[in-house]
């Protein structure tokens, strides 16, 4: 059967069951996982135009479970069957099987999945990508002479994943396109940078209008005269990406099972208790189609079919995001625990942890009080509208949260005054921030693209989003 995979991966797909069977001659449970990513990056800046085809970078990881520990070998030599069989045999022979929980390989399943896109990125040539970048570059440069260093980048990534255990043989073909505009402006004394990113599974991500390019350039120029926000506590309205990142950093990390089992998730003490206002609903769902953090199955071979509801109407739920290791050790300790589709790794030679995918606040329906963005601003008195996330950092044990945004817009008497703040840091104590949420819009926007690490490593693709929310945070 053809799965629309590159020929070498199609061949490897057929060989994986043999590797698993070889490992299971000694080990009670084995898996094989193959990852391969490739693509092309095109970039245009004043001194540099670059087109870099990223060739396929394959790798395989074979893992065996001894009843308490996963033992894995990982290698980039995917094309040598004898070598892979020798590695697998050596791995299986190196373990001593212990009494312990055993994984369930799941029902028999042989499936292939593929991203849906509007415009096939594979059909776009390097020269078309160059033209798009050159056009955006020229539009940015032409906008104002203070735009000293515009940059346009087109990133196309095609990622294949194969998973095999004794019941399951899964494969996926996921494409991601990102188009980024980065104008730098200078007045001779001050340098500032604006950023606009657009991500989608297909080439549609790069189909942005000249109006959007001009707005991106205009903001960069406006930043030159923007002020720093006076430090203090403010009523703030967060844009959907920042809203989602607040969800991600506040309860997302705290609901990753490996954080709980190592005692670093205070959320574990609050299951079933109120952690925010009743407007707070947070979910993580890798199966949300076509988002930057979307997956078809986890690296433990679990299909991404059900959202994990982390917070419902302000109450922390017992639904936790699990990877296979944490699930095996915790299922007897936490009755009802499910193995979710959150076990993910950065690269084939890295460990699998419980990770988020697409994490977002749910919007509030209009009939329940959900507002439009304009209504929320008009209803806010004095506040700051915070836009364009640059980074976030979690503290799931201390329940601190740190977010960085590119800009804030002053709101006085329910109206935007036109005053702009450049680079705003936001912090707060998570329960206080969530309890202070008193306004929320009615539309869901999960369109951001980014990556998330465990601390400062193990980066995986994620997205975050939600509606606009209004709350109180410290700004600086």
């Amino acid at each position, binding site marked *: 059967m053809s799965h629309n995979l590159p020929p070498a991966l199609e061949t490897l797909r057929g060989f994986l069951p043999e590797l698993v069977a070889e490992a299971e001659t000694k080990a009670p449970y084995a898996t094989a996982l193959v990852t391969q990513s490739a693509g092309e990056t095109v970039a245009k800046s004043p001194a540099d135009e670059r087109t870099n085809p990223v060739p396929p970078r394959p790798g395989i990881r074979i893992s065996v479970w001894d009843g308490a520990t996963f033992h894995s070998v990982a290698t980039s030599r995917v094309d040598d069957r004898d070598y892979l069989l020798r590695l697998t045999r050596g791995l299986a022979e190196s373990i001593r099987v212990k009494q312990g929980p055993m994984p369930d390989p799941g029902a028999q399943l042989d499936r292939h999945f593929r991203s849906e896109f509007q415009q096939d990125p594979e059909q776009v040539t390097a020269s078309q990508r160059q033209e798009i970048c050159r056009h955006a570059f020229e539009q940015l440069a032409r906008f104002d002479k203070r735009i000293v260093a515009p940059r346009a980048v087109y990133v196309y990534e095609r990622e294949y994943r194969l998973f095999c255990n004794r019941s399951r043989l899964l494969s996926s073909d996921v494409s991601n396109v990102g188009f980024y505009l980065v104008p*730098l402006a200078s007045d001779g004394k001050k340098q500032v940078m604006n950023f606009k990113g657009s991500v989608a599974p297909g080439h549609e991500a790069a189909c942005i209008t000249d109006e959007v390019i001009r707005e991106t350039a205009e903001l960069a120029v406006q930043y030159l005269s923007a002020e720093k926000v006076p430090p203090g506590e403010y009523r703030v309205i967060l844009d959907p990406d920042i809203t989602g990142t607040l969800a991600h950093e506040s309860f997302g990390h705290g609901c990753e099972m490996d954080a709980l089992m190592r005692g670093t998730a205070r959320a574990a003490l609050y299951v079933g208790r109120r952690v925010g206002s009743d407007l707070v609903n947070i979910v993580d769902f890798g199966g949300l189609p076509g988002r930057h953090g979307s997956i078809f199955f986890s690296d433990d071979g679990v299909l991404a079919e059900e959202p994990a509801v982390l917070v419902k109407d302000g109450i922390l739920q017992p639904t936790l995001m699990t990877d296979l290791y944490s699930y095996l050790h915790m299922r007897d300790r936490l009755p009802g625990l499910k193995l979710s589709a959150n076990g993910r790794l950065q690269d084939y030679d890295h460990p699998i942890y419980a990770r988020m995918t697409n994490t977002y606040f749910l919007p509030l329906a209009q009939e329940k009080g959900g507002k439009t963005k304009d209504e929320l601003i008009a209803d806010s008195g004095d506040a700051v509208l915070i836009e364009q996330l640059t980074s976030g950092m979690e503290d799931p044990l201390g329940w601190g949260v740190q977010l960085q945004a590119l800009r804030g817009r002053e709101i006085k008497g329910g109206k935007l005054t036109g005053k702009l703040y450049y680079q705003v840091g936001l912090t707060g104590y998570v329960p206080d921030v969530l309890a202070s949420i008193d306004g929320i819009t009615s539309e869901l926007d999960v369109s951001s693209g980014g990556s998330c690490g465990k601390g400062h490593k193990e980066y995986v693709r994620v997205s975050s989003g939600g509606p606009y929310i209004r709350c109180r945070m410290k700004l600086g």
Partner: protein
Amino acid sequence: MDFNKIKSIVAGSALALPAERGLEVAGWSLRRTETEATTTIRLPGIYTTREGKFVRQPNPHPREVITAPGEEVWVTVYGRHQADGNEYMGEAVGQFVSDEESAVKATLTSLATAACGQPNKPYPISDPGALFPPVEIADHELLELSPPALLARVQRFADAVLTAAAAEFGTDVSNLEVFVRKIRSRIETSTGIAHEYNSTRTDAEVCFIARFGDKVAEHTARPHARRLRDLDPQVLVTAGADHARGICQAGPPPQHTGPVVLVGDAAHDFMKLDYQPLSWHCAGRAVYEKMSRYAKGRPAWGDKPLAGDALTIYSDPLVPFGPDSRVESEALPARRACLLKEGCYDEILGGLRYYHYLGLLAEGAKPAGPTGNTVVPAGPHRTAELLGPGRTIIVRSFSDFRADPTSGDFASEIRLGKIREDGDERHFKGGLLVGNWFDSLTDMKLSTETMSQDGYYGPSAIRVGNLQIAG
């Protein structure tokens, strides 16, 4: 993969490509890395909750052990083409996944096509006369170990950390990850460079949890070293546990405007070239594209008067066993570069391309390459003097310090700080330290005492006179 076979195909094909496809390949470089990597992850206790409290049960087995033998061969192809009477140049980087001739040629063709389509000004490629520095970046003890012996050595280190942690009051290690890599690198270029060297790298992540009654706090230490023996388990645990206990006992942050003393981790984060804006402004590309504030010989803080010590910062990839030390980058020999000399911009980071564009090669300068270790000469002030009499605000660590590379602005959450007053000290956490990195240079005092941590070699205490804490 047979590296020599690939090299022979690359050398032959690169020359043959113009005739076949009308492309002019200006040169190539090949890099092979053979890696032996070992990862061990320990979860010494498994936590659950009972009656609103965490309960810990010992877990004697590792979470995961990964061994990863690997070999990668990367190639950079430089291409030239002419258009409108001008000569242009480009480059493209790729990886070979097979040594079969047809696969190697297909990759080369794809890269040559990409390289020849880039309308950039020409620049020189690697210098055949390059002499590579004999910088020590390999742990010879680790190099000699077989894969099972390497794994056993890593497990012994993990055991030593857990043993040291068991003796700490009120603190557990909740997660311990150790990554060790042995890497053999070979670089060969069309200009005749052929150089091979070994390196090793050890990265650890140790998560400490402190508990006092209902109070609980976490601190994660992430040390990096070239030699495993440079990570002393006892030192690592003593410092990490103390930090976790400090956060656990900390109170709310103060509102403050004025001097702040950065010590330890915070001094490291504030100065390290990775997190502050200097390397961005000293990058050849940023200077050439006129994005940078760089102006050789001019103060980095602009026209404001200097009230403190004039800061000097080196990017130094030659520190023996430094985590950010290297032999070469893109076949360019590593060298030390002074980025800031007594407060004034001095040298530029970058490779042959931007050194050529900026006319620095013509002046006889050798490219400095990318950043190395951050080296800051000691200052004239004893730490006790910087802490001074009266009330002093001290920051020990940040949640995630990053100054904006373009503006230098920062607003970073304080992970752990101290308020020192009349001989008493009390910890605080939270709040934002707000300021501008360049403005900070106008009023900075550096300690005579120094530290070396994760690629930072410099003063262990830094007093900055003009900061704000939003508590």
